[in-house]
Structures are given as structure tokens and as C-alpha cells.
């Protein structure tokens, strides 16, 4: 085999390999959700009430504390879980009691959930309980929405002013 022919063959092999790599650099196309569907995301970071109210310490209890750590009140750090429900259409799509984060359980509760739905009209209702109550909800919001194909619809919660945000 002549040198020129051999080098040509070598180059053709290398070029073909590189072309294959270039082709797979953005092909085949990946579709994450079925055609004609939309994505609803429920996400928020919210701290519920403390587990217990602050308690005034007695004079004896204060006296027992080291001088540099004496305080009037004892306020438990731990927070309650946040209870949340989400209706998408007629069904309850999500229902959870979200534990507070942090080693001492004093951080905010957090959630990030994605729901893939066919595009169309939906009745959306979000409910949250973040206090000591065992029945009912502290925050609710419901709306009728129209989801476009590939739309990303976000259900967030804002503390100030407190309430759900649909966007």
C-alpha cells in the first residue's frame, strides 16, 4: 500500500470517528415528557410555627443557669411540620407533611415536586397548614387554569404577604 493511500485511509477512519462523535453530540433528540403535556411544579421553602410557645422561666430555673447564659424565656427551637395538599383537577395530586430541615429541626420545610399533565383546563387548589391546628388550613388558593403544551406552571408560597403564588 502506498504511503499516500495509507495516510488517506487513516484520515478517513479518524474523520469518520469524529463525525460519529459530532453527530451524537446533539442527536437523537430527547423528549422528557409526552407531546402535548405541560409541567406543574409545586415548590416552596417555608418555616412553620415553633413546636411550642416560649415559656417564662422561674427564678430558681434562671439561677441554675450559668451566669453568662441566663435568660428569661425558654423558646424551643424545633418547628412544626408543614402540611400541604395540592389538587390538580378532581384528584388530590399531592399530600404531605413536610418535616423541618436542619439537625435540630429548626429549619424551614421545603418541597419541590413536578407533575406532568396533558395540556388543558384544570382546577388547581393548594392548601397549607403551618400552625398547631389539627383541622382546616392556614392558607388556601384555588383557581381554574389553562395549561398550554410544554408550559411550566409554578405553584410557590410567599411569606410576605403570606399566601400561595400561581405563575
Amino acid at each position, binding site marked *: 500500500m502506498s504511503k499516500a493511500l495509507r495516510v488517506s485511509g487513516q484520515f478517513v477512519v479518524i474523520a469518520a470517528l469524529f463525525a460519529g462523535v459530532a453527530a451524537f453530540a446533539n442527536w437523537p433528540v430527547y423528549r422528557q415528557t409526552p407531546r402535548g403535556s405541560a*409541567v406543574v411544579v409545586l415548590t416552596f421553602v417555608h418555616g412553620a410555627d415553633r413546636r411550642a410557645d416560649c415559656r417564662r422561666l422561674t427564678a430558681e430555673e434562671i439561677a441554675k443557669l450559668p451566669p453568662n447564659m441566663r435568660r428569661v424565656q425558654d423558646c424551643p427551637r424545633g418547628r412544626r411540620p408543614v402540611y400541604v395538599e395540592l389538587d390538580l383537577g378532581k384528584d388530590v395530586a399531592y399530600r404531605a407533611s413536610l418535616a423541618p430541615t436542619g439537625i435540630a429541626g429548626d429549619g424551614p420545610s421545603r418541597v419541590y415536586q413536578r407533575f406532568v399533565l396533558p395540556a388543558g383546563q384544570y382546577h388547581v387548589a393548594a392548601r397549607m397548614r403551618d400552625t398547631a391546628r389539627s383541622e382546616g388550613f392556614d392558607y388556601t388558593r384555588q383557581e381554574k387554569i389553562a395549561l398550554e403544551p410544554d408550559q411550566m406552571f409554578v405553584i410557590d408560597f410567599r411569606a410576605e404577604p403570606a399566601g400561595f403564588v400561581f405563575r
Partner: protein
Amino acid sequence: MIALARAILRRGFELIERPFNRLFGPALNPLAQLGALGFFFFWIVAVSGIYLFIFFNTGIERAYESVEHLTTAYWFHAGVMRSFHRYASDLLVVMVVVHLLREFAYDHYRGVRWFSWLTGLPIIWLLYTSGITGYWLVWDKLAHFVAITTSELLDWLPIFGEPIARNFIATGTLTSRFFTLMVFMHVAVPLFLLFIMWVHILRISRPKVNPPRMLAAMSLVALAGVSLWNPALSQGHADLTKAPVEVGLDWFYLPVYPLTNIWGKGAVWGFLGAFFLMLGLMPWLPPLRRAKPAQVDLAHCNGCARCADDCPYEAIRMVARTDGMPFPTQAQVNPSLCVSCGICVGACPSSTPFRRSTELRTGIDLPDRSLRMLRERVVAAASATQEAPRLLILACDHGGGAAHTGIVTLPCVAMAPPSLIDFILSRNLADGVAVAGCAESACYHRLGAAWTRQRFDRTRDPYLRTRVARERVATIWTSALEVKRFEKEVAAFRRFLATLSAAPPRPVAISAMAASAAADRPMQPSAQVES
């Protein structure tokens, strides 16, 4: 299970390597240059990245526009550079993955090789982190997809207080500072990657970090051609109000991302954790093979340093003389780095089987497979060979001849000092000697095939003496699976020897040997015969 996977992979590599060797030759074979090509593509990525950074704007609103501008308005230089950056990154992944699979297939990760194997694992993570942060910077639809999926994966780990993915749920939640952070990561992580790449080759003697110029030149031209044929383009501006549900995925960097959708994030982390844990443990999984390391015999060592020079694992260093002999240095073996390949034995000028001492001793030797044992086995094999022409085969443990009977096996053919060939022929122990090593591009001990060739070509000490009839010495390079090829080459050499045996040994012209090779395709030694 692992053994089966290795056998299948090895078979696959050997099927590919032989035609590659034929076309490229052992020196240019890309499969024998994977590490060097990896470094080469890293430098292309680095240089093209610096060039692109001149045009890149890190602002949230301007990032996409700046990339689009350089791709369209300056397509002939910055656009091509973008394609170089993208495709060289992909090729780097290909080199790393094939390199890993090949080292696994050829069992190149046990013993002292654990260090390179283990330090190769963070390279994979750093490489993927570099690539993923790069895709993020373009801030197109694919970047949006990568941002959300990466964040969701990271959010699954109980590390971050607030879900990172919340940054990408709506316009206004993302700031330019985030892009500055990403640029920093996209520069810092590759620098750290380069550092680990350096650590990766620390314990390797003569690591190949630059491919042959011809291969590098062809790669550059091919990369330029591919960049013009299929330029790297963006996939439309990221729109946070729309889910990036359909994207042209880079299957080299992002193959795990679709799995998060199919398996779930926990399963993906579990898979990655288990996979890399298994990879990390593999050097210590059975079967563990460890022969006794080489030992220096100072009475026969003159400190010539040939053994240190030839060792493929940096296991020998020259230190100040300790026995009062009039030589400045002596060889010292680091047992934790020695794989007992015996290449040092073949390099030692004291390793001559002609020695008449009661017990054959050399300057450096393998306790389990000493030069004395080798000479005894050669003599025994020669006396057992009666069929004319008498052919004696010295075969590597890892080559195609290892499983045959009646041959003398060695941990590496480079363990056989050239004087052993002289000994066999001058003592009329055989009519010819075939030295059968591993496949040329996949030498088990990295440099054994190269050193053997150079010693026989008289370009590397210790030389094959000129009095040795070179046409009576053949080299056969076959992998362990190429048994038939080995047998075919041995039969061809035997036929060739038969033609020589009629007359006393004499030099044969290259042209005559070439004609013989063309007639029955005997073997490579035909081209190595001297006139």
C-alpha cells in the same frame, strides 16, 4: 461476572485492534494512544475555551446573545472554535471511557497499577462537572434542561437548605452572579482536572502525554472538517416559562439525565455510587496476583542504570553505592511498585547465560523466575525439540503463545536478554528462535514489545550481537486470543527455517525475505532481517 465482561470486552478490542494496527501501524494506532489523545483533546478544549471567553458575556441577559453572536457573526474563527471546544470535549469523554474499558479488558488495574486506576476515577467526575457547567453557560434550551435536571439531582441529596432548582422556575429568580459562579466553576474544575491528570500518570514511566505528530495533525484536520460540516449551535434562548421538554442531548456528557426521568433521582445516585464503588474496589478484588519483586545482587551490579531506565513502573532508582565497590551508584527496587515483569533482568548487562559460574547470577533478578531457571528451561525445551527445523519459542505470559506446550514462557518477552538468543543459536540449541510477545499496541507491561524491538534492532542497550543470524530470529506479536494467528506465524517461520537449514546460516537480503513473506505471509521478522 466481571471475568465474563472482561473476556467479552477483550475479544471486542482485539477484533478492532488488529485492523487498526494494520492500517495505522503500532506507533500510530489510536487505541494505543488513548491517554495521549486524551491530553491532546484537553489542550484543544483549554485553548479554544480561552479564545471563546474573549467573546463571552457573563450577564444573564447577554450570555446567550454573546454565544449566538460569536457563532453567527464570527463563524469562521470563533464559531469554529466553539465547535472545536464542543467536539474536543466529547472526544475527551470518548478517550477516557475507551481508555478505562481497555485497561479493564487487559487487566491493567491490579497490583501497583491500583494508583493510576484509582486516580482515574475522580478524573471522570471532574470531566463531567466541567462539561455540564459548560453547557450551562450557553443559556439556551439545553442549558435550561441541564440546569433543572442537575439541580433536581443535587437537591435529592440532603445537603442544600433550599432547593437549587427553585432558581430556574421563573424569570427573575436567576441573577448574573449565578453565571459568574458558573464561569468560575467552568475554569476552576478543569484546572483541578488537569492536576489530577498529572497525579494519574505520576507513577508511570515514560507516560504518553503527546500523541505522535502525524496522529495529532490528522486529528486537528478532522476536527476542523467536522466543525465546518456540523457546527455546534445553540438550541434557542432558555425560556423559564416553558419546560425544556425536548432537547438535542449530548449523549457523551448527559446520558444519565434521561435516567433521572425513568429511574428517579435516588436510583440514579444509587447506581452511580455503586458503580464507582465497584470500580474503586476492583484492584483489590480476587484473583490477586503478586509475584515476589525483583532483587538486586550488588556483587553483580555495576550501577549502569539500564534496569532503572527500562522499568515501565518507575520501580527502580539509582542510589549511592553501599558496598564499597568502585561504582558511584547501585540499583534499588521499590517492592511496592515492582510488578515482577522481569524487563530489568533483560536490561541488565550481567544477565548473560554464557556465564560459567556454578550458579548463574545476575545484577537484578526475579526470585520466582530467575535467569538461571530461564536458562534451564531453555535448555530443557531445546533438548525436547527434535523435529527439524528445531524452533525454540520464548513467549510472553500474556500473548497468543502462552497456552502452548513445549515453549518457554516469561512474564514479558523483554525479560529475555538478547544474549539468551545468542546463547541458543551459538550453542546450536535450536535452528531458530521465535520471540512471541503481546499484541504490539497492547503490551501488557507497556514497554516490553518496544524494548525487545529496539534491542534486536541494536538501537537500545543491551544489543543483540551482530554475530547472531538475524533471519533465524522472529518476533511475533499476538494477543492472548489470537492463538490461531500465533500458530500460523510459527508455522510460517518453521517453513522459512526449513529453507535455511539446507545451507549453513548466512545473512539473507531483505528483498529475498520480502518475497518469501509475500508468498506465504510468514511474519513480521521478514521486514527486520538484515542484509
